[in-house]
């Protein structure tokens, strides 16, 4: 079952419809409800390798639906600590639970100050209003 629309207020957001949950010097990344709804049910998740580096504003992987292939834009820079294998095996997990079971990667932050450039929920809602 696809999740119903929600945007948790404890997350930071990137205008390309990605979210980050920062805990200490680590962060968990994923895509927002809006992103998964626009794409429709996902059929493939092309994940980065554990140990590779991701750069803020650049693509770290792809998700694919029957409508489109979409780059995953990293909201923060760092080293990939873990990839969500559950999403690799069952990409629709992102549609069912985009902020929980459907997380995509966990990284160790290389530039923790970058969080200052991410959007709060209020600012992200302004992005959504224009979308």
């Amino acid at each position, binding site marked *: 079952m696809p999740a119903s629309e929600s945007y948790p207020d404890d997350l930071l957001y990137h205008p390309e419809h990605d979210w980050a949950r920062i805990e200490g010097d680590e962060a968990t990344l994923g895509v927002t409800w809006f992103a998964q709804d*626009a794409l429709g049910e996902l059929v493939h998740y092309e994940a980065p390798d554990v140990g590779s580096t991701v750069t803020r504003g650049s693509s770290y992987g792809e998700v694919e639906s029957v409508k489109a*292939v979409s780059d995953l834009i990293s909201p923060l820079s760092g080293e990939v600590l873990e990839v969500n294998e559950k999403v690799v095996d069952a990409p629709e997990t992102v549609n069912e639970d985009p902020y929980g079971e459907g997380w995509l990667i966990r990284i160790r932050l290389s530039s923790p100050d970058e969080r200052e450039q991410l959007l709060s929920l209020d600012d992200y809602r302004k992005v959504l209003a224009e979308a």
Partner: protein
Amino acid sequence: MKLIYEKSQPGRRGIGVPGTEGLEVPDVPAELRRETPPRLPEIAEPEVLRHFTELSTRNFGIDTGFYPLGSCTMKYNPRVNERLVGLPGFAQLHPLVEDDAAQGALELEWHLQQILLEVTGLDAVSLQPAAGSQGELTGLMLFHAYFRDRGEDDQRRKVVIPDTAHGTNPASVTMAGYELTPVKTDARGNIDVEDLRGKVDEHTAGLMLTNPSTLGLFDENIEQIGRIFHDAGALMYYDGANLNAVCGISRPGDMGFDVVHINLHKTFSQPHGGGGPGGGPIAVRDILEPFLPVPIVARDGATFRLDYDRPKSIGKVRAFSGPFGVFVRSYAFMRSYGPGLREMSEVAVLNANYLLAKLKGAYELPYERLCMHEFVLSARGLKREHGVSALDVAKRLMDYGFHPPTIYFPLVVPEALMIEPTESEARETLDAFCEAMLAIAREAVDEPEVVHSAPHSRPVRRLDEVRAAKNPVLRFRFEDHPEEQGAGDRQLEAQKGA
């Protein structure tokens, strides 16, 4: 309709093949020999014919109906093209014959090159690339060759692409080893020049642009954009996917572009539904001519030859001299129009604007401008208010007998419906299409369930595209149909039992 394997009957044959008695058995190594016959359906010839004739009636093509698939230019393919490409001198020409035995074919290619130079406003052309996507990659390889020759290849690593681009553009950039610099679209549907300025510098190799864009809009700032790139020492690539809008009216070379690919199969007619065959020649400015792929068709007085003596060439990009059958059809198409080629584009643009004017009240128009040869509407309002998406509209159109337009592209428009009528269609057809689109918009309000569950009148209903992508069934599942096993399977079973 049954699959041909389901029609199979044990022992039935289409033709009688002579026995092998008395024939010498070729010396095939044991490990390469079949141990059992292949799994072929066993069926009589008339049944085979009826099967495939019935299948062909399930097809939809430009020969059966209106096909407004945006960005694909599904125009009518005149029958005279087929007659000419079937002439024995063309159809039976072996690709390895010497030039002196293929003068007619080479002359046709040379004249085709000349017309493409006139249409694009550039200086030299290679007919080799097999389609638009290969033209893109070849063009970017020319970027590399040009900058390598100038000692700037290591420095220039970036190619700028607008967010309305065809998906092949970023793919070609990545395959060619360049980095992608995306640029935004402004409120009028042009490249956002302010966003662009900060992104073009001495590290930029060039721009890839479709003009008119996939929104069907001609970039009003194209000369200014050209200056930004050329002032930075970068090159301009023109994706010719939408050339059908501007033939004989404006030329990419005059707009400032240095490399252009031409989709012969779109602009100059060639049956190409289902992915081919295509033809993607590239035309270039003189500064890039030395690097073009080999061979080029050259003329020496009254004779023609394939010129391989081009020391700075990037080499071959396709077997022989290109997709020759496409050349013959496109050349025939161009010569049928003659200098009237401009009218082709004018009517394509007129047809698109006629549809746009009739439909923009019922569907959202994201950019309030006259369009070129195609336009993009949005079903966003229908989805928000009535839950009817672009996909639902597309499926419902099939019930009205039309091929759906391109949907969900370009990505900058939510719930996009991208409509390209081409110049081929009569006003009555355009009117009938508009009536269907307007009827669907009314249905979305009055009886949305009819639209949600469309199509109702086609051989198959709505397909489960997600399941098809996740669990593709690509062959007949013999293991699920023991009663339809072929002779090979029965022999296999017998061997297992023995």
